[in-house]
């Protein structure tokens, strides 16, 4: 039986390959994700290990609680005096203090800060270039002396920095002009992609970073034969409070832990998209298998008549699926390697360069990718396999025998369906609600529950009932996950994931019932949208193609043909290469291009679209499954677009609320719109002529009521510059915070039972604790609060935090926004090239632009599942054309031209795509509305432009998917129609 199955596969190569493609892409995404993240992880590990190579022990300041990167506050510094004490210790051979800053801007020749996406701008001291502590080597020039800087090779090349040149460097203070003394790279040759490196001598660094007399860390080398542990013990005895010591290895580990967190987030994020692609792929596979099994009814029946059991028929289908799944997964696994390379470039292209020290291919990658691919194929083949067993032996001798549609015993299968659904739901609910302590175990059990539920729903003899059960359970899970308070993040995500998948499944199945009316509805839309697209692209694609081919092979005078060829070549160079390829093929092989080619026409052809739309509805189940694959991709894309539109609308709304009646005219932010900027920048701006008031908002992490929260600090000028909605208190609170006042947002007050007058204790990174009194409670605008949970005055903040930074600064000027005021502010900020002056509109646009690059990444990732569904449409159409060979032959015999055949197939394809798009868009908006209803700070906003773009994209998907099957259909010989079996 196994040999039979494999021989069968080989005899249906094209169909098998098309089915496998869906799995290949999903598996490639999973393996690519692992390769990508493992590679980044390894690159960071290498960099951090290198940095600590020469250190036996490292002393650093210790904050009272863990801080996240870029939060605006940093670990406390150490007194430089400690360095002397450490050097005195008996086991210490050498010790070196250093300072660093992750916001050290290099200023390019154009006067602008050198920034590359979100990559850090690292600045650090190099006390002694030749010491073992230094992980860098010189490529050119010498180590930095006073008022000198060394920069990394990549940045120097990009910005054309030369040794001896003077460039601007800005950290905490205004920009300083420093001489480039050398060009450096890591000794290991690794690069942190996109990051800029600036090395300074210690006193210069301390001045620029505003850490005079302080060091961030002390690297210590032990005397020979002294174990690291003993050195650490010795140092611990003299450590002041707020400092800690680790061995070099431990410190490297601690350094890379921070990045690991980011990497595992990235991993989960990308895996989720791989999972979606596989889920879409499972629809494609189930559908392809169902179609091939229907086409092979006779074959199965023949097997049965010669003595094969039901079980053997099922076995042969499953073996086929497993072989396809395994081969596809292996191909996908290796394609993943290529994909990882591609993703490195993709992230690079959107300005988010990732470090890379070669691709890492872990055994875990192989196991997970293969297991996922094979399991999905196997599961998708179970249902079609069971249908194959329903073929009665008598079908072998009947002309046109078809598969029995549903199982015979309705009562028994309803019971079986209900039972299986029940078990699935129980397993799923138990898995998500109980915590075995491991998110992975919960997720795996939840997936098991989901699979059982899906099979249960599929078992119901009434499709509609099963579909409704699945939809109902899905929405129940979604609503439970979203609206029941007090669930952990993992459970919320699991509830939502399981709910969304159940809804997709249910909608896909119930759609079967709607296909006849949907395709009748979509037919004119498909016809006219294809017409409209063709009209638009006619001069750029269809016409030049015809002209080129006329020039190459057409009849007519040489003059006319040369003119046509030149005109075509000028209109579209891409088509020129295609026609040149055809010419080459003609020369090399005996192939003859068909001529005359039809003159490109675009007028829709009612008769062919009529037959095409009938074709789309004649097998509703097939059309529904094909459309469902596209539906999933488009639902997720629409969900993202609707959420983004909601975020943008809410954000605009809230900024306008805050500024509406206030005096604010300008905002100052970092060039990248989100990094905190040094307080000096705003102070400099305050010196500009015409400035009436400056309001700074500082930000950082503190601890309160046992958790780490974002706190902000605000200037008294806020009373005039920002308008808040007060639940308790008034605008005056902003001006009267003083040294011990605070105000909190509404939600935080409720959560911690705060009222005006309540005390609130904040612990700062340096470990000190201060008590503040709540003076007011405000209602944050829907688009997000401009403040953290707790806000105190900048005066109180600066007393506790070294080198305070502003999140943003608002400025009021005499004469509001004007052509004179903007340059005045810019002039005042000339020394702070990393800051920029923006009007309210610019501020809103810039804050939103950050969102759009995230959106672009999401769209690219979701495009993968749309591509999988495109292959699904191709697959269905190819199988359909194969099945209708005789019919198409008959149509050709009674007068259908090749073009009409192609249009007929294309019309069916576009209708299918439009049905998928319509369902997906509606579903996406419903899901987004649910999410938005849950999230307080979002308002619903319909993404009109995006939806139009998605519909056009769906039509294009339909047209593209039809190209290959339509060509095959057009090539069919009309003789096929009358040939005997």
């Amino acid at each position, binding site marked *: 039986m196994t040999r039979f199955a494999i021989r069968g596969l080989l005899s249906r190569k094209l169909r098998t390959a098309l089915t496998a493609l869906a799995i290949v892409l999903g598996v490639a995404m999973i393996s690519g994700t692992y390769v990508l993240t493992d590679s980044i992880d390894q690159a960071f590990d290498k960099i951090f290990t290198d940095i600590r190579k020469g250190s036996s022990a490292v002393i650093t300041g210790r904050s009272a609680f863990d801080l996240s990167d870029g939060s605006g506050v940093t670990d406390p510094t150490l007194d430089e005096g400690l360095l002397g004490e450490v050097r005195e210790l008996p086991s210490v051979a050498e010790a070196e203090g250093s300072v660093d800053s992750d916001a050290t801007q290099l200023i390019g020749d154009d006067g602008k800060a050198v920034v590359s996406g979100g990559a850090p701008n690292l600045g650090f001291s190099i006390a002694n270039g030749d010491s073992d502590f230094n992980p860098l080597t010189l490529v050119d020039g010498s180590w930095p002396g006073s008022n000198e800087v060394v920069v990394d090779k990549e940045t120097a090349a990009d910005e054309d920095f030369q040794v001896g040149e003077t460039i601007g460097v800005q950290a905490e203070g205004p920009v300083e002009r420093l001489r480039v003394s050398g060009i450096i790279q890591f000794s290991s040759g690794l690069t942190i992609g996109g990051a800029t490196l600036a090395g300074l001598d210690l006193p210069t660094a301390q001045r620029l970073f505003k850490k005079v007399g302080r060091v961030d860390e002390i690297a210590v080398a032990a005397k020979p034969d002294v174990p690291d542990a003993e050195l650490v013990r010795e140092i611990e005895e003299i450590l002041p409070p707020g400092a800690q010591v680790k061995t070099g290895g431990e410190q490297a580990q601690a350094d890379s832990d921070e990045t690991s967190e980011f990497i595992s987030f990235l991993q989960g994020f990308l895996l989720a998209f791989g999972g979606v692609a596989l889920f879409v792929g499972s629809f494609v596979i189930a559908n392809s298998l169902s179609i091939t099994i229907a086409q092979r009814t006779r074959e199965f029946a023949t097997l049965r008549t010669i003595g094969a059991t039901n079980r053997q028929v099922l076995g042969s289908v499953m073996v086929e699926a497993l072989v396809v799944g395994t081969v596809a997964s292996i191909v996908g696994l290796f394609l993943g390697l290529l994909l990882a390379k591609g993703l490195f470039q993709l992230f690079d292209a959107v300005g988010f360069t990732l470090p890379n020290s070669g691709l890492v291919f872990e055994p875990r990658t192989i196991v997970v990718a293969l297991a996922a691919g094979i399991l999905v194929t196997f599961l998708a083949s179970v249902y079609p396999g069971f249908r194959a067993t329903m073929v009665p032996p008598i079908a072998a001798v009947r002309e046109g025998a078809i598969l029995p549609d549903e199982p015979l015993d309705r009562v028994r299968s309803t019971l079986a369906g209900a039972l299986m659904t029940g078990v699935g739901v129980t397993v799923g609910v138990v898995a998500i609600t109980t915590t075995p302590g491991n998110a992975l175990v919960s997720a795996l059990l939840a997936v098991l529950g989901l699979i059982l539920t899906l099979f249960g729903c599929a078992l119901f003899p009434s499709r509609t009932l099963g579909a409704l059960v699945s939809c109902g359970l899905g929405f129940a899970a979604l609503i439970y996950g979203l609206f029941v308070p007090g669930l952990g993040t993992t459970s919320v995500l699991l509830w939502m994931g399981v709910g969304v998948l159940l809804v997709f499944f249910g909608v896909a199945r119930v759609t079967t019932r709607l296909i006849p009316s949907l395709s009748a509805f979509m037919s004119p839309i498909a016809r006219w949208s294809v017409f409209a697209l063709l009209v638009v692209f006619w001069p750029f694609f269809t016409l030049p193609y015809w002209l080129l081919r006329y020039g190459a092979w057409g009849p007519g005078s040489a003059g006319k043909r040369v003119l046509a060829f030149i005109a075509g070549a000028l209109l579209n160079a891409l088509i020129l290469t295609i026609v040149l390829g055809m010419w080459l093929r003609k020369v090399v092989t005996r192939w003859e291009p068909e*001529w005359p080619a039809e003159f490109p026409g675009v007028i829709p052809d009612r*008769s062919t679209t009529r037959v095409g739309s009938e*074709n789309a509805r004649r097998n509703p189940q097939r059309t529904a499954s094909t459309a469902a694959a596209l539906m999933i991709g488009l639902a997720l894309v629409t969900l993202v677009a609707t959420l983004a539109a909601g975020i943008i609308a809410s954000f605009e709304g809230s900024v306008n609320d805050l500024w509406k009646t206030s005096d604010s005219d300008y905002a100052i932010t970092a060039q990248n719109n989100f990094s905190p900027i040094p307080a000096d920048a705003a102070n400099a701006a305050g010196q500009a002529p015409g400035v009436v008031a400056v309001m700074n908002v500082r930000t950082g992490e503190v601890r309160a009521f046992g958790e780490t929260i974002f706190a902000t600090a605000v200037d008294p000028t806020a009373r005039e510059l920002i308008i808040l909605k007060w639940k308790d208190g008034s605008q005056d609170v902003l001006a009267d915070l003083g040294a011990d006042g605070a105000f909190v947002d509404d939600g935080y007050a409720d959560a911690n039972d705060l009222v005006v007058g309540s005390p609130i204790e904040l612990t700062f990174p340096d470990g000190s604790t201060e008590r503040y009194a709540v003076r007011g409670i405000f209602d944050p605008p829907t688009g997000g609060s401009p403040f953290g949970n707790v806000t105190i005055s900048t005066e109180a903040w600066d007393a506790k935090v070294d080198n305070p930074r502003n999140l943003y600064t608002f400025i009021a000027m005499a004469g509001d926004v004007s052509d004179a005021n903007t340059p005045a502010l810019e002039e005042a900020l000339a020394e702070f090239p990393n800051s920029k002056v923006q009007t309210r509109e610019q501020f809103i646009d810039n804050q939103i632009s950050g969102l759009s690059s995230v959106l672009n990444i999401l769209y690219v990732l979701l495009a993968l599942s749309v591509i999988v569904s495109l292959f699904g449409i191709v697959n269905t159409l190819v199988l359909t054309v194969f099945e209708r060979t005789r019919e198409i032959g008959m149509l050709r*015999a*009674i007068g259908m031209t*090749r073009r009409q055949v192609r249009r007929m197939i294309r019309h069916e394809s576009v209708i299918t795509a439009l049905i998928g798009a319509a369902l997906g868009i509606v579903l996406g908006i419903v899901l987004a509305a649910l999410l938005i209803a849950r999230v307080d700070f979002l308002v619903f906003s319909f993404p009109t432009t995006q939806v139009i773009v998605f519909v056009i994209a769906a039509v294009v998907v339909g047209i593209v998917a039809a190209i290959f099957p339509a060509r095959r259909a057009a090539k069919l010989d*009309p003789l096929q*129609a*009358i040939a005997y079996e």
Partner: protein
Amino acid sequence: MSGNGNGAVVVASEIARRYGEGETAVDALRGVSVEIERARLTAVMGPSGSGKSTLMHILAGLDKPTSGTVHVAGTEITTLGDNDLTKLRREHIGFVFQFFNLLPMLTADENIRLPLTIAGEKPDAGWVEQIVRDVGLADRLKHRPSELSGGQQQRVAIARALVSQPTVLFADEPTGNLDSATGYEILELLRASVDSRGQTTVMVTHEPRAAAIADRILFLADGEIVREMRGASPHEVIAAMEELSA
């Protein structure tokens, strides 16, 4: 309806058809010349492998001869491109197939009008109505093929072939998939359309009883026309066949 003066609407001269190359090559036709007379029913008979189907495919422009020429309604068709051939089929040729080949999702009425729909022509209501009446389907028009018997399906197919008023109608084993009583009705229908409307018809068959309704019977064997009979009875046809295979 055009011909070329002497009453022939399809003229084939010296057509040969070879399949494959080299040693495995098979000659399906070896220099056949034939004229199909207007307003007559011509039957092409022969044992299987005699080349009768190949001959019909070439006369109808579905296949091309290796050598020789074919004129349909005055046009030499062996050199035509696919588009011109398709147009020629629309205007001049009708087909009736052994397996009916109706579109399952269209009603009988829609199937009948299909050639006109494809050609983008407006059906002449009176003409369609008359054809439907002639084939006896007036009360089954709204049914789909799956709701019709084999005989009824073949009637739909004949109506479909006649609806575009073709110069010549080709029928490929029209009774091959029907029981003998139904098959006889279909043959009568074909005969009637020749008699009442002068519909030129070519029928390929291996059934002597079917061939016997023809005005003229061409016998093919090994790719050549070996005999021709006019107005033969079934017994004469059977006798001729036996002679051939002997």
